[in-house]
């Protein structure tokens, strides 16, 4: 420590803030923007990028509905249509749903825990650049007519070397690597942030439920995503250097792909859904003006869901001719997951029942979620049964089911969460009037679009067909669905308009517009780069409700270097005054070097050898000490 430095508690408010701003500021300009490690800047970029991908995926959906609006339409050819539905699914799952949920965590978790930055901030910057590169790769390939055309789960042998000529399937498989690297990095950051950076006093039973949900989600990512990375690597190897993992003629097996894919793919659903559970639990408590009913039950339900998520994957494979006993086991486990889901629903209903409700837009989306998700859950229990699944497998019934659980179960809460946290992120309120319009258009549009798909599925319409004949009598419902999707899209359009308008001209929100109880509302909106001038000390699960007069904080941190508190895992006792690294351009260069290697390796195995050298150099640049005050110990 140098002579000049002094601790935060000794300084006048104005001096404290200017010193903290000096220490935590991100340099302006192009290189500053590329070097920043502020979790809020990166989180905001992540969220905006993910929503851009949502909009792009929505345009693809619109194109598909245009094509299917009438029988034997000739607007899109079969080859392009294959690319479009593959891009739609891949984009929505890997570039929108998972990243946006993790991005909300990147932005909010450190604030809700009362700390100053996420753990491993440079890894966080790296993860964003990798995500952006992966998304750019996929969409550039699509623009060049090289987009993957094998479905979002890329089953072999269709995606294997024999049928999947060209580089389309490789683009898909390598895009997986990009997004999984980024998701795994964020998960490690979130796990360590939750374990070690909680405000002193925030014991395990005081962690906000949204943070719990991100913690469980992160563990799911850590255990599930290696499976898809192994799978996609084996696929690339089969295609590039002639291995035989999925080639039955040489001792390989096509079902191995499905096992590996769904061992990841089913937990993936909960990776998307659990953060939504956290969002709903947060919004419900705030707008019912009471602590959420059954905190412990909700936490246990999330953990139970996380564990059960790994015992369900075979229900995606019921029609592959697996042994009966296996099928029965997976039917039972698939139905069992309805139990924690039910517990969650009843806890929310109890909270709403007992609360003094304030029907603002976020709560509307939550109520829309409960209704829609319950419908999706019911069809989930139906397709968990082998005989029903055998009938409706690969039909529009399944399309309807998973849009109900994913859009109803995750996108509705997400939109509610955007309305809820937008004031924190921008300092401005979104419009209540436009919000209500957007909600009703989306809610009604969604149900009119997707409910008839159940019926189309029961009538036998298969998914992923680019057209159908008039004799099938599906055209009436298809036209209805296509027209309804306009309502849904109108709702989303309104939402985007509201976001852009409010970001510029929304009413100033103040620090805590909803009178919410968690720590992110204790600081200004948007929060300063250092999040909190003095770090909060927590004595209750709802600190801003229990201590509405003043916030309890601790002092004694240096303001001349980026300091925060490391606390113990269970009780959150303070253990050390740790430092958070400064901005660095190296994560950006590492991401560039990694992208070059990964894309090159689609074309040549030697890329792995030669491409690794720049990555190693960039990593050395990243980790080599620069003599900053944060280095001192």
């Amino acid at each position, binding site marked *: 420590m140098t002579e000049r430095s002094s601790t935060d508690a000794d300084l006048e408010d104005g001096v404290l803030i200017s010193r903290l701003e000096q220490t935590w500021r991100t340099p302006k300009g192009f290189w500053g923007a590329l070097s920043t490690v502020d979790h809020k800047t990166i989180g905001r970029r992540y969220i905006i990028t993910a929503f851009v991908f949502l909009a792009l995926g929505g345009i693809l959906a619109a194109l598909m509905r245009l094509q299917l609006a009438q029988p034997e339409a000739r607007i899109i050819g079969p080859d392009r249509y294959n690319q479009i539905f593959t891009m739609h699914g891949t984009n929505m799952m890997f570039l929108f749903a998972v990243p946006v949920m993790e991005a909300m965590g990147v932005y909010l978790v450190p604030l809700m825990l009362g700390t100053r930055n996420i753990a491993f901030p440079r890894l966080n910057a790296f993860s964003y650049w990798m995500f952006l590169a992966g998304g750019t790769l996929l969409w550039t390939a699509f623009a060049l007519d090289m987009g993957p055309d094998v479905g979002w789960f890329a089953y072999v042998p269709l995606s294997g070397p024999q049928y999947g000529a060209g580089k389309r399937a490789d683009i898909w498989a390598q895009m997986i690597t990009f997004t999984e690297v980024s998701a795994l990095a964020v998960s490690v950051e979130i796990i360590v942030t939750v374990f070690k950076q909680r405000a002193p006093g925030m014991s395990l039973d005081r962690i906000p439920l949204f943070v719990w949900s991100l913690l469980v989600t992160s563990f799911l990512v850590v255990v599930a995503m290696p499976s898809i990375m192994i799978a996609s690597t084996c696929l690339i190897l089969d295609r590039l250097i002639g291995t*035989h993992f999925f080639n039955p003629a040489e001792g390989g097996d096509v079902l191995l792909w499905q096992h590996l894919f769904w061992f990841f793919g089913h937990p993936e659903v909960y990776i998307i859904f659990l953060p939504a559970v956290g969002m709903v639990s947060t919004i419900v408590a705030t707008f019912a003006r009471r602590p959420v009913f059954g905190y412990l039950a909700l936490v246990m339900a999330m953990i139970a869901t996380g564990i059960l998520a790994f015992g369900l994957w075979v229900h995606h494979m019921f029609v592959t001719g697996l042994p009966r006993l296996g099928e029965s086991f997976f039917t039972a486990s698939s139905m069992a997951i309805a139990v924690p889901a039910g517990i969650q629903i009843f806890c929310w209903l109890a909270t709403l029942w007992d609360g003094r409700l304030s029907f603002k837009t976020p709560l509307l989306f939550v109520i829309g979620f409960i209704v829609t998700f319950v419908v999706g859950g019911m069809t989930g229990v139906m397709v968990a049964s082998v005989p029903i699944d055998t009938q409706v497998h690969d039909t529009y019934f399944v399309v309807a089911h998973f849009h109900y659980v994913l859009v109803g179960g995750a996108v509705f809460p997400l939109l509610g969460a955007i309305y809820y946290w937008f004031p924190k992120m921008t300092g401005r309120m979104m419009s209540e009037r436009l919000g209500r319009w957007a909600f009703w258009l989306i809610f009604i549009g969604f149900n009119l679009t997707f409910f008839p798909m159940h019926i189309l599925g029961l009538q036998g319409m298969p998914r992923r067909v680019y057209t159908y004949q008039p004799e099938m009598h599906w055209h009436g419902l298809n036209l209805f669905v296509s027209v309804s999707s306009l309502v849904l899209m109108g709702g989303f359009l309104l939402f985007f308009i509201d976001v852009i308008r409010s970001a510029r001209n929304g009413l100033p929100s103040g620090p805590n517009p909803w009178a919410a109880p968690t720590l992110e509302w204790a600081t200004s909106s948007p929060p300063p780069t250092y999040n909190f001038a003095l770090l909060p000390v927590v004595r209750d699960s709802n600190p801003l409700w229990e201590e509405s007069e003043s916030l309890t904080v601790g002092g004694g941190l240096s303001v001349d270097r980026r300091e925060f508190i490391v606390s113990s895992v269970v009780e959150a006792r303070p253990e*050390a005054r740790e430092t958070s690294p400064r901005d660095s351009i190296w994560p950006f260069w590492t991401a560039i070097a990694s992208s070059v290697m990964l894309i090159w390796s689609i074309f040549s195995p030697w890329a792995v050898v030669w491409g690794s050298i720049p990555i*190693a150099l960039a990593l050395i640049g990243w980790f080599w000490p620069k003599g900053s005050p944060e280095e001192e110990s």
Partner: protein
Amino acid sequence: MKQRIIADFSRLPLHGLGTASATWWGTLAFMLIEGTGFALIIAVYLYLMALAPVWPLNAPQPEVLPGTIVTLLLIVSLLPNYLVSRWAQQRDLRKIRIGLVLMTALGVAPLIVRFFEFPALKINWDSNAYGSVVWTMLALHTTHIITDLADTVVLAALMFTRHGHNRRRYGDVQDNAMYWNFVVLAWLPIYFCIYWIPRL
């Protein structure tokens, strides 16, 4: 919102070691990710074996000698690795420097033998699925060794500079040692799969 100071953090240490360090937990999380990856590739191996009429599939038994030498080298390296970690705890910079140089050598040695281990598999990666999976397992673990070796080399170089004498660096040395234990540990089930399961 008004603030009320109820705690004083000024006496806390400036850096935590072990469970008080974020890097320690981060290393553990990455070990969990990689451990899951290894477990899955072993699952792939066993899955393909369960389908095959004979195992090894249309190939002779792999030759055990190079793999066993690698295993022995890795196990032997655990002792100096443990010592380096202890010296880091004692902040004995001179011994740490010697130890890291030694660990660098002990990282290079198994790589040299590994070069002979691939041909000892007696099958190519593109011959059949058996060849594919054993080559992949071996390649994954080789990547693992190379990664930690690179980390050790850079860390060793760092310890010879003015940045070496710093609690953070000592923590890095300990975390690097912990990771090397994992590299060795992860190898044992793979070694057993590749060389001994076909002989069961």
